């Protein structure tokens, strides 16, 4: 059995605002039967443009019902601007927390609210259409994953699954989710593709500029790759076009890789700094 807070239990056993407002100003529907949970949220505005009433219908587990009911309580009295800012975290906090595997229930609440507001504004009900579906099993897009990850500071695939369900079915999309997280948090094993300082190598560099650029390049392009293998690199000296480095750790003990390593460093420096550079290794 899940560990639910008393507040979750209360909102599950005695949910408030169950039902549907027939002449609603905004209607938001998210989820599906196949996914295992779904929420239909309806709200009505008063003359000042504040949410006067909100009702829900939910198919899902106890925490989904509790999250939905809590949401309807929370939004009452809010302006649409205020409601728009409400996040899944607010819902979970209001309930005194949710088991981590159940966080997706609070995300469903936030999504339904967003959908209802969009509906009121006459926009497409499904902002998810902007994204590309990453998880086929649960129909979750890259945009949704990014948003949830940013809002809740999520860094692992497992957390994404807890919050969105994505990755929790067949599991085939897990690599793609990892890639999204890598891109988002910039934790990807560095590939020398994106951030090329363009035209750098064409320009004639001052010595200071050259030194700085070499340092940056080693930092950005070389060191992470070596570190991934348990090694490291240190810049010893720069003598006009000669770059003296010392290779450390695992790399330095492996004679066979030494030659390739030097070449790797050299090719990076030539690519990003100057074609004329020569890398030489000094033994520490």
């Amino acid at each position: 059995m899940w560990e639910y807070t008393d507040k979750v239990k209360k909102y599950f056993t005695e949910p408030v605002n169950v039902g549907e407002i027939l002449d609603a100003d905004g209607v938001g529907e998210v989820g599906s039967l196949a996914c295992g949970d779904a929420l239909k949220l309806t709200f009505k505005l008063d003359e000042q443009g504040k949410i006067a009433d909100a009702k829900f219908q939910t198919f899902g587990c106890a925490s989904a019902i509790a999250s939905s009911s809590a949401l309807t309580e929370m939004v009452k009295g809010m302006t649409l601007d205020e409601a728009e800012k409400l996040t899944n975290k607010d819902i979970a906090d209001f309930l005194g927390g949710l088991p981590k595997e159940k966080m997706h229930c609070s995300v469903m609440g936030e999504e339904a609210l967003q959908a209802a507001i969009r509906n009121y504004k006459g926009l497409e009900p499904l902002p998810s259409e902007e994204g590309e579906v990453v998880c086929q099993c649960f129909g979750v897009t890259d945009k949704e994953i990014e948003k949830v990850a940013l809002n809740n500071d999520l860094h692992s695939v497992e957390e994404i699954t807890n919050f969105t369900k994505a990755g929790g079915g067949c599991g085939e999309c897990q690599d793609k989710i990892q890639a999204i997280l890598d891109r988002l948090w910039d934790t990807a094993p560095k590939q020398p593709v994106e951030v090329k300082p363009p035209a750098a190598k064409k320009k004639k560099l001052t010595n200071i500029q050259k030194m700085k650029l070499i340092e940056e390049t080693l930092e950005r392009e070389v060191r992470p790759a070596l570190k991934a293998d348990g090694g490291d690199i240190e810049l010893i000296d720069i003598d006009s076009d000669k770059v003296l480095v010392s290779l450390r750790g695992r790399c330095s003990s492996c004679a066979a890789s030494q030659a390739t390593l030097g070449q790797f460093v050299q090719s990076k420096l030539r690519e990003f700094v100057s074609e004329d550079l020569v890398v030489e290794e000094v033994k520490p």
Partner: protein
Amino acid sequence: MSERVVYMDNNATTQAAPEVVAAMLPFFGEYYGNPSSMHNFGGQVGAKVDTARGQVAQLLGASPEEIVFTSCGTESDNTALMSALASQPGKRHIVTTRVEHPAVLNTCQGLATQGYEVTFLKVDRQGNLDLEAAAEAIREDTALVSVMWANNETGVIFPVPEIAEICAAKGVLFHTDAVQAVGKVPIDLAGSAISMLALSGHKLHAPKGIGVLYIKKGTPFVPFIKGGHQEHGRRAGTENVPYIIGMGKAAELARTRMDEENTKVKALRDRLETGLLKIDATMVNGDPERRLPNTSSVSFEFVEGEGILLHLSAQGICASSGSACTSGSLEPSHVLRAMGVPFTAAHGSIRFSLSVYNTEADVDHILEHMPGIIERLRAMSPFWAKHQKAQCATPGYVEP
């Protein structure tokens, strides 16, 4: 939480019978000898272990030498699978079903990533196997066919003796996970072609922590747990004497209570089912005929199982669900999905599993509360509202 407890989750675990507990107690105190010892003090314990072995053998229609005590049903299943592979190194193929208990299913999925090939047989909408497909799946290099005797979620019974015959005719070993079947289905291993069979004590009113693996005489065997030569060299580790004694007693009780399971318990189950089916949009999962007498998997469409369980629990009623929320995963039961049970029903499936300790009053307690619980949850289900509208929109109905 209500005072009263109505326990209908016996496929998960059962209450240890008071007779079983009483039989075990002396072996926690006075009789602490090691049955493998040469002295009389240990020897008298050894004799009791033999009695227990005989009691289990009798329940299964086997001979005592074919009975090996293990720590649980899962260990028995693992032992059977691993032994079949280890004793026939050239054979790297296993046949099993999609609806096995995780003890077999996950083990086989693991083997499939380690260079073994596994065929997972399908079931139909009623949860039944296609015997011809099973026969066709067997190949030259098939080491083992492993098919459960009865399904833990739906209670559907597979024609295990027939499948064993097919395997024997092709010279292939056959194992069955009979954890749910023993004590509810008559089993006569001597007259069967079954090579190995797993059972679990705690599904049978013995306590948790004891299992049995039956190994037919002449079956090639390699132990899973290696060490001393307890259990005739087939399962190392000092015998868990009190639990073995309890297992023996439970086997004896099960043998004498088999009729009761199939008359009294079945009647209670049917009474429960009939009552539940009066609730709108409700259905029973699994072949209604070929089913364990104690199990009922009922789906209440358009609601989610966890909510039902929590409301039941508040009334002291213990059951389980195949819904995603309760399975700890995000998808509903692999058994119901393999059967093609629609999502509307799979998420709202509740399993009631009875035992000889249940009464008519238990059933009536459930029947008293269930309609209200389902009604409450449906009142807040968007799908139920849509379903109602769709029903109303059938021809002949005029919108007011």
